[in-house]
């Protein structure tokens, strides 16, 4: 009985392992999927920056247009939920 139970658990994990590349949840784990958007994003290089709006460290709204009169350094950091 326990032997069959263990086999069922292992078989379920086998199935999950095989299904991973096709699952939406696992889309972040496959390098091909992770990089799928890079080609589309690369076409934006050289294009004008979109009219982004975000918050600074103090919670004040910052618009891209306000930054154009001075030198700007943009940095991109990996978040925890990357």
């Amino acid at each position, binding site marked *: 009985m326990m032997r069959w139970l263990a086999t069922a658990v292992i078989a379920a994990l086998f199935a999950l392992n095989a299904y991973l590349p096709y699952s939406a949840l696992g889309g*972040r784990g496959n390098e091909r999927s992770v990089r799928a958007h890079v080609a589309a994003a690369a076409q934006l290089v050289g294009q004008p920056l979109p009219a982004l709006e975000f918050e600074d460290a103090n919670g004040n709204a910052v618009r891209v247009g306000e930054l154009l009169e001075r030198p700007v350094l943009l940095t991109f950091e990996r978040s925890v939920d990357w």
Partner: protein
Amino acid sequence: MTAAYRILCALVGVALIAIGAPLFASFFAYQQPGGEAPLPGGPHVHYFAATAGGALIAWGGALAAGAWRNELSRSLGTASAFAFVLLALMRILAWFNGDYYTDANLQRPLAAFFLLAALGFVWLRPARASRRVAA
């Protein structure tokens, strides 16, 4: 105990010792003045790697010994199957997580390999010894 189970225990036992020994040694290599870090990481990485290496050596040694001792082989098979399922589960979750995407799809073949090993331990381990009935 079948010959196939004996071979499985011996092979896995030796492999675990072979993997665990360098991990254990990495801690001491890291302490060498002026030496290069054997593993990509700092003191805590080597600390935990050596801890895992010690556990792997103990596990592998028990399996290798269990290949020759009937009284150990069944419980060792159960524990090893459980451990391999945990190792596979960890890799499946790592694949989901995406933090390890630079390893391409290494997690999935490794998980499949560990699940196969678990299946081997489940099905090749000896049946429960029959109880002797007092005359």
